[in-house]
């Protein structure tokens, strides 16, 4: 765990070391000051060394404090640099790693979880790291140094700490052990409350439509009260730490005043040293308190660290290993031979089961089947968004793994079911397909996708800005933009995965006509629910439960294939009445 994290400190290692070094200087200087003071008073006033001695020692102390100040400030600066640099490295590594994820990798972690890992978790770790290089070094150093000087002043008196320090640590440990499970419970309640609020926000329409505000309020009241009680239960242990600390400090003070006074009176310790000693009580016990806090922080950060490392250590399961970079896709022919697929290696049932199909270059192929029949899964194996579990998928006569992902996916364009546009202008989004496209090419693609007209109707036309996720467009408009974006790639194979579901049938028909007229040479695969979207295809594949149920043209299937006919009937009921 630590090794993997240390890797991320690259470029900031010197700074990460410099900061503790400066803290060492800071602490060394700081701790000596009370010691020098005691010496100054003991010798200067009580011992009669006189004014010169006092002035020299005084200047020495001020100089020490100044050195300490500069070192401390330097340490803070370097720690900030190193900590923030480390955080930036971490974010970059995760982001790059996620970008290399295959679809299977993405499915494994869910999108919201990836986002939390990159934001909240990285922040926690970053703050932790900055703390580590400052406090983790500082507190034990302070403890050791202060103890050393206390011991130098009077070894016998320093034994007070050998009783007090373990006692305090024990008490803090006791709090920690008992509070931790309560905090875990608290976090659960907290997450539960938030999840339930979110659910209510998302379902606001349902809540209103059924007039259930009162019911939701009552549900919330219960969770809210539970959260309050869990918070109090957990924190009422933690608040003991303050008074425990005070009792220890106070106890030490009284003990040292008592034993110290005896030592001073019988002459085995000098008077001013007693004052210095009292100053060290605070230094020693305070650093113990900090050490225990680090422990708590580390426990909290550990979850974050694990969650982040899980991402960093994930191996993208689809890569260019074994690909020939010079190989490009020759034509749009597709072959699937004995293709089987399951999402999880140890899954029981094949999602795709022994599929064999040949598609000629330039053909239009429809894929139809009910929800859960694995239509999407099947086509996603063509641009290698998933790798087959068994069998082989060939594009242009070569197995897909022979091409680099870039070469393969540049030739095999796919419009996904969930259409996402990115913030920026419409044109910028379209240029994802081809960053060097001319205005003419862009407009042409949009005309074929039936997007040009509505784009032109916007005041800013192609320069219209889209919010995150393209929120100001309707579903059908987004789908059409996504089709245009894919067309701009001038692919050899175009896969439309239910990409016109929100487009009305007339426009859908126009888009298909446009394809035929302008891109007759592109192999087009249309996954659809509507028979009308696929009935003109050269070939229609009927999928059922991951298996090919039938392949044929509309005319061949209608009347002979049970599923196809049933779907057709359900959609055309009434027409012939």
């Amino acid at each position, binding site marked *: 765990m630590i090794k993997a994290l240390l890797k991320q400190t690259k470029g900031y290692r010197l700074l990460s070391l410099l900061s503790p070094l400066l803290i060492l200087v800071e602490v060394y200087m700081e701790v000596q*000051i009370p010691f020098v003071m005691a010496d100054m*008073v003991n010798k200067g006033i009580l011992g009669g060394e006189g004014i010169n001695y006092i002035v020299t020692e005084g200047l020495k102390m001020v100089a020490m404090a100044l050195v300490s100040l500069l070192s401390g400030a330097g340490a803070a600066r370097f720690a*900030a640099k190193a900590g923030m640099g480390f955080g930036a490295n971490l974010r970059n590594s995760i982001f790059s790693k996620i970008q290399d994820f295959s679809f299977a990798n993405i499915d494994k972690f869910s999108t919201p979880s990836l986002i939390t890992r990159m934001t909240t978790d990285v922040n926690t770790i970053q703050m932790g790291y900055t703390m580590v290089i400052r406090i983790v070094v500082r507190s034990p150093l302070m403890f050791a140094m202060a103890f050393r000087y206390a011991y130098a002043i009077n070894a016998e008196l320093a034994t007070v700490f050998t009783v007090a320090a373990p006692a305090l640590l024990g008490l803090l440990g006791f709090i920690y052990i008992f509070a931790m499970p309560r905090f875990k419970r608290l976090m659960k309640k907290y997450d539960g409350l938030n999840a339930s609020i979110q659910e209510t926000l998302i379902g606001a329409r349902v809540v209103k439509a059924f007039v259930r505000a009162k019911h*939701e309020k009552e549900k919330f009241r219960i969770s809210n009260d539970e959260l309050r009680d869990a918070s109090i239960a957990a924190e009422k242990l933690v608040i003991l730490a303050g008074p425990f600390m005070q009792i220890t400090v106070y106890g030490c003070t009284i003990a040292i005043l008592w034993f110290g006074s005896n030592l001073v009176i019988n002459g085995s310790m000098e008077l001013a040293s007693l004052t210095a000693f009292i*100053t060290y009580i605070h230094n020693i016990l305070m650093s113990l308190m900090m050490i225990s806090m680090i422990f708590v922080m580390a426990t909290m950060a550990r979850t974050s660290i694990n969650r982040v490392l899980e991402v960093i250590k994930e191996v993208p399961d689809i890569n260019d290993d074994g690909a020939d970079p010079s190989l490009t896709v020759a034509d749009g022919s597709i072959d699937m031979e004995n293709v089987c697929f399951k999402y999880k290696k140890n899954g029981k049932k094949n999602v795709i089961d022994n599929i064999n199909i040949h598609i000629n270059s330039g053909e239009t192929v429809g894929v139809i089947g009910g929800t859960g029949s694995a239509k999407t899964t099947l086509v996603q194996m063509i641009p290698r968004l998933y790798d087959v579990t068994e069998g082989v998928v060939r594009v242009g006569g070569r197995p897909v793994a022979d091409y680099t992902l870039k070469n393969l996916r540049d030739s095999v364009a796919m419009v996904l079911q969930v259409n996402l546009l990115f913030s920026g202008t419409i044109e910028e989004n379209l240029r994802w397909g081809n960053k060097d496209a001319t205005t003419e090419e862009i407009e042409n693609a949009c005309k074929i996708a039936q997007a040009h007209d509505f784009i032109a109707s916007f005041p800013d036309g192609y320069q219209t800005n889209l919010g995150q996720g393209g929120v100001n467009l309707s579903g059908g408009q987004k789908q059409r933009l996504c089709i245009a974006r894919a067309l701009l790639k001038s692919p050899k194979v175009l896969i439309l995965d239910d990409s016109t579901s929100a487009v009305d049938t007339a426009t859908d028909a126009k888009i298909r006509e446009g394809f035929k007229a302008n891109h007759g040479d592109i192999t087009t695969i249309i996954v659809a629910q509507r028979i009308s979207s696929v009935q003109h295809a050269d070939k229609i594949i009927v999928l059922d439960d991951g298996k090919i149920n039938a392949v044929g043209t509309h005319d061949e299937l209608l009347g002979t294939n049970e599923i196809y006919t049933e779907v057709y009937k359900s959609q055309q009921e009434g027409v012939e009445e």
Partner: protein
Amino acid sequence: MAPKAAPPKGSPGGFGGPVRPSDTKRTFARLLSYLGRSKHLLLLVFVFVAFSSLAGIIGTSFVEQITDEILLPLIGTQVTADALAPLVKILVSLGFIYAFGAISSYAYSRIMLQVAHKTLNTIRADLFNHMMDLPISFFDTHTHGELMSRYTNDTDVLRECISQSFVQLVSSVVTVVGTFAMMIYFSPLLALFVVIMLILAFFIIKALGKQSAKYFRAQQQCVGKVNGYIEEYIEGLKVVKVFCHEDSAKSSFSQINDNLRHAATNAHTYASILMPIMGNISYITYAAAATLGSLAILKIPEDSFFSLSVGALFTFLIYTRQFFQPITQISQQFNNIIAALAGAERIFEIIDTPIEADDGYVTLVNAKKNEKGEIVECEERTGMWAWKHPHGDGTLTYTEWKGDVRFENVTFSYDGKKTVLKNVSLYARPGEKIAFVGSTGAGKTTITNLINRFYDVDEGKITYDGINVKKIKKAALRRSMAMVLQDTHLFTGTVRDNIAYGKLDATDEEIVAAAKLANAHSFITRLPDGYDTMITGDGANLSQGQRQLLSIARAAVADPPVLILDEATSSIDTRTEHLIELGMDKLMEGRTVFVIAHRLSTVRNSNAIMVLEQGEIIERGDHDDLISQKGKYYQLYTGQFELD
């Protein structure tokens, strides 16, 4: 009424946090009013904090007595019990003071814990309860993330502030004032010197605070950019992969990430440099005071006002160490408070949003016919309902509840600019099925939004059983109709709970009956725990079709005379849809139904079909009428089966 908020003047320790509230004073007063509900307890906290701080300060002062009165005279003498008796006495009273201090610490922590969580609990409840009463337009115009952060981020900073800042501030102020008073008492001369150092520290804090605020603002902007980019590119990851956009995404990210690193480094430098600087200023003061004090002991005659004893010097030095830390604390607490106020302001902003107004006065009551055939109100459930309509002259009329809905020249716009519905008139008689067809954005969903008054019409009127819907109490209106939406929105809970959402007091028999009606009973009984199967994450463990069946059962159990189906089957394949339709058909029997659908097959058997285009009804009639009209509907309908 709030004056255009002047940028809050930096507090003495103005370590400006990233986001500042726009009206500090008002928000602060409001937050105090929440705390004020526990004002007696807070007063107690105040007293105990003061006790705790003072115990420490007074305890320290005993060092002088011990040094000057016991140790100095006794040094070099034989230690005897007699000689030490005064020391024992001092230490015992010191012990009492310290014990009192520690107990006070525990007391205020414990009380404050109660106060803080009670206050947070109240604020959260106010926020949620208010949110539940807000109109749907509020939810349509705010993202879930935006609203959630009120419950997470904003409440978190508020918790930090309430549970810590109050105590810390009081304790710091008491410590600073008390310590300073003690310093003056023990040595006015050295105290004067400390004041000079204090002024120096003050300027340093101010200068650093200014820089820090500047960089924190810059950092906040960068954080916003980075988080936005992360969200967008992780959500769109599959698209990135399909377009081989990984490298360009990585390089853009690395750039904005580096900007963040830069800003964050500066912000954190200025924030964390304060501690070592203040800590060491206190050491410089300590060193200088020790030197000056020593010189004073030697040089200033004992009878002078400025004279100093050895014990006083020691005590003073311990005070010096205690003096600066609370000053740093105060400046940091101001930061926390500013940040918390910004959060509180965002919370209050929602609490201040006007709730969904309801000036309706017509309600729905159980009714029966008396022997004269008149409708009268009654207590028990009769299965018959009536609109209870009070009039201005104090009379009451009852109208039987049937489910007759009419639109009369309705015009509507969401934003007052773009008209979504233009002069729409239509009627639905009890038991009729009315369908709306049209492309996205034609105004279909808007019609349903108006029927149940999620939004109110701008012009024209909608009547329900002859009563203007504006006169009907919203709760009564909405209870009288059920909605089945494309997004099912199931809630975490059992299958039974989810069906009962339509009618909270539904009996088990009613629930099963509703499930049977919706064709959901058979799959529910096959679930591992049947009706007690837990549904999580918006029904993720059910298929889309099953979820939709549950939402139909939920509408069925409500058993309303009016039903609104808004794209209820759009995301389901046609074969599954067929099954659902069987359930739906039974549900629709005898009810007034409004159907919105993409698929024309679902609307075919409606009594009337309205074809909407850009907010206007361009065609209306039943399926056969429209087909024979050969208009838009005909085109759409035949378009689906266009054989080329």
